[in-house]
């Protein structure tokens, strides 16, 4: 067994290959095999269209984009690209997959699985799931995206156990490689500019009074 695999990563590993590939099922490969070999040669590639990304390691893992398919599957290389070996799950996604929805799906899973002992995981997963939903709906702005990133980092750093510490991983990795998919869905124009907003009532301001410091008086409509 030591003869198989890569230096420092001896032996084989069983993966559960699933998603948008021709041949799904359990595969056993020597460690250090490239992701491309597993997905394209053994899996037979995506039945219709391009492979877009591969999610490894289950709900706590990360998404590896198609550009990095030549990454050898060993513990260090996967960590370097922001994912993990984890449970050995390997979900292939093609161009029809919405990466924000992928992140939302995994966050929903972690939210359901949270035991509720520590605050960051119990509340953080709910809050991150809400933010992801809002980004999908198109009602979130850049500030929500910023808040999501902050929460991801905070939950990862402060959670008590592995579930909370890794729950933001799919979101972090999709943000890292598919940030444009998030940004495309943000609210188009956060603050309507200029005149012509019917819900705003123009209040004349008396510049002279304002200069005198009587600002409440200055704002009174005349």
């Amino acid at each position, binding site marked *: 067994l030591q003869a198989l695999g890569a230096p420092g990563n001896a032996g084989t590993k069983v993966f559960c290959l699933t998603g948008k590939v021709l041949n799904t099922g359990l595969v056993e490969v020597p460690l250090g095999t490239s992701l491309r070999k597993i997905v394209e040669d053994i899996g037979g590639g995506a039945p219709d269209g391009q492979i877009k990304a591969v999610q490894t390691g289950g709900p706590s893992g990360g998404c590896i984009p198609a550009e990095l398919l030549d990454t050898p599957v060993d513990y260090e290389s996967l960590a370097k690209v922001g994912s993990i070996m984890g449970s050995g799950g390997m979900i292939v996604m093609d161009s029809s997959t919405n990466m924000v929805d992928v992140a939302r799906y995994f966050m929903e899973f972690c939210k359901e699985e949270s035991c509720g002992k*520590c*605050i960051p995981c*119990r*509340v953080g997963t709910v809050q991150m799931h809400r933010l992801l939903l809002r980004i999908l709906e198109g009602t979130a702005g850049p500030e929500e995206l910023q808040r999501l990133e902050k*929460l991801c980092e905070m939950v990862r750093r402060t959670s008590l156990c592995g579930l909370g510490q890794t729950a933001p991983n799919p979101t972090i990795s999709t943000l890292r490689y598919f940030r444009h998919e998030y940004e495309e869905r943000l609210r188009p124009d956060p603050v309507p500019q200029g005149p012509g907003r019917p819900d705003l009532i123009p209040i004349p301001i008396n510049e002279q009074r304002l200069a005198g410091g009587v600002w409440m008086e200055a704002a009174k409509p005349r």
Partner: protein
Amino acid sequence: MRLLKNVEGAGFQLAQKGARQPMTVLTLTIDGRLISAPEGATILQAAREAGMFIPTMCYLDGLSAHGGCRLCLVEIERDFRLQPACFVKVSEGMVVHTDTPELREYRRILIEMLFAEGNHICSVCVANGSCELQNAAMAVGMDHESLDYQYPNCDVDISHERFGIDHNRCILCTRCVRACDELEGAHTLDIADRGTDAKVVIDMSQPWGESQTCTSCGKCFMACPTGAIFRKRSTVAEMDHGHAKLDYLFNAREKQQWNI
């Protein structure tokens, strides 16, 4: 020897086995200050003994540590993870940082999370002014809520003759559960369900008034940091949890120390 004596008399909660033997004193650095602490003390105990402040929520003197609130997380040099000060024991030459900008921000978000999760409306709460959640919010400088309020649908149980529990105000610190189990020995209270659904239940999730195990001792009320468990027929001005009574009980029982 004199130093050892002082430390021994300082009221550390240590395992009683061999308490009469002289303790080993360790030195460590917390926030740039060199302090000494007996072997077996936690970072939190060492820091408090030295008069340093580390915010806590689920920790209470007299009860076992829980480690769920994550407020006392500290940075230990040469440790890539943040560690809860209420659990980690001091070691020789340890260098601890308790107040970095990163920690300060995380603590603020943690408190914001608690406010977002429950229905905390201070103006109509009996614990207003004597609430640890309120104090923590001020201590961490939370001036607004940046998260979505979750508005959970919680119930209030006032079926007990002397006490009531309002789940809207519960932060799931489990201090009441530990007080009931460890100090009273009744274990009437516990946590049911998980994640957002987790809640404190009485016996097999039945009305408090019908509980066969509750001794009506009020230790859960003494342990509660917020207004979740309250004494009935008492006003905001009369609200005094008396948290220190639990520590007194613990010291009297476990260490035969009867002074307050």
